[in-house]
């Protein structure tokens, strides 16, 4: 019983962990570069949830001060995650730019195909 209640109470964490693992799996398993980047974004987003979850206070409101309200959720995770989101999109943009260039250079966006070509160039040296 305790176990079940523990599992339920940590539901957010489970969801986070599932998303995280899913994202990580895409990054490691998928050869398609665009999909890899999407997986990376999923992975990052799930981490955001991990930050936000403990900061939520039941019965609290968004941290915009008002005389009528006493309980607020924790603003600090929000700030951190705002920054993290921006970092995430910056990385995504950079990654996509690289993919576009790789596609122009190698004619493929499949990582294993590109690496084959790279290996061939290495061998030719």
């Amino acid at each position: 019983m305790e176990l079940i209640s523990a599992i339920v109470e940590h539901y957010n964490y489970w969801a986070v962990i599932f998303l995280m693992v899913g994202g990580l799996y895409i990054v490691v398993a998928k050869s398609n570069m665009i999909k890899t980047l999407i997986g990376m974004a999923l992975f990052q987003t799930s981490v955001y949830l991990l930050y936000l979850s403990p900061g939520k206070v039941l019965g609290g409101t968004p941290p915009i001060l008002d005389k009528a309200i006493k309980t607020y959720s924790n603003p600090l995770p929000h700030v951190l995650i705002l920054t993290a989101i921006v970092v995430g999109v910056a990385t995504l943009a950079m990654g996509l730019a690289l993919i576009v260039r790789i596609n122009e250079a190698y004619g493929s966006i499949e990582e294993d195909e590109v690496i084959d070509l790279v290996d061939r160039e290495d061998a030719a040296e």
Partner: protein
Amino acid sequence: MRLDVILRIAAKLMIPFIMLFAIYVQFHGHYSPGGGFQAGVIIAAAVILYAIVFGISAALRVMPRAAVEFMVPLGVGIYAGTGIVSMLLGRPFLDYDPLLADPVAGQYWGVFIVEVGVLVTVAGAMLAIFYAFALRGRP
């Protein structure tokens, strides 16, 4: 081509409101959700919408690349420059207290200024990235 008309008119109607919303998000950021970053993204979105509907050349006439490329560093310059001003006034980097006679007001307006910096860089950067991708596809 004809089908575009609706889109074009809708866009023409929407874009001013989007811009207005961006300004609201920016200036009301002290009181409600939002701030420089979100406003910057929204402005960029407006221009991107314009570019999608009216063509990239039209967007480039509104927002030339040179201007965009200027905005990207400018925003960071405004932000970091504020910090330097704090230092010149004898306080640590990014301390807004000394910007005005009243430290609280200094904070209030200091936050406002740096949010403007954020807006400029984010809008510029998003557009710059968009242009980079969009123009890459052209022959």
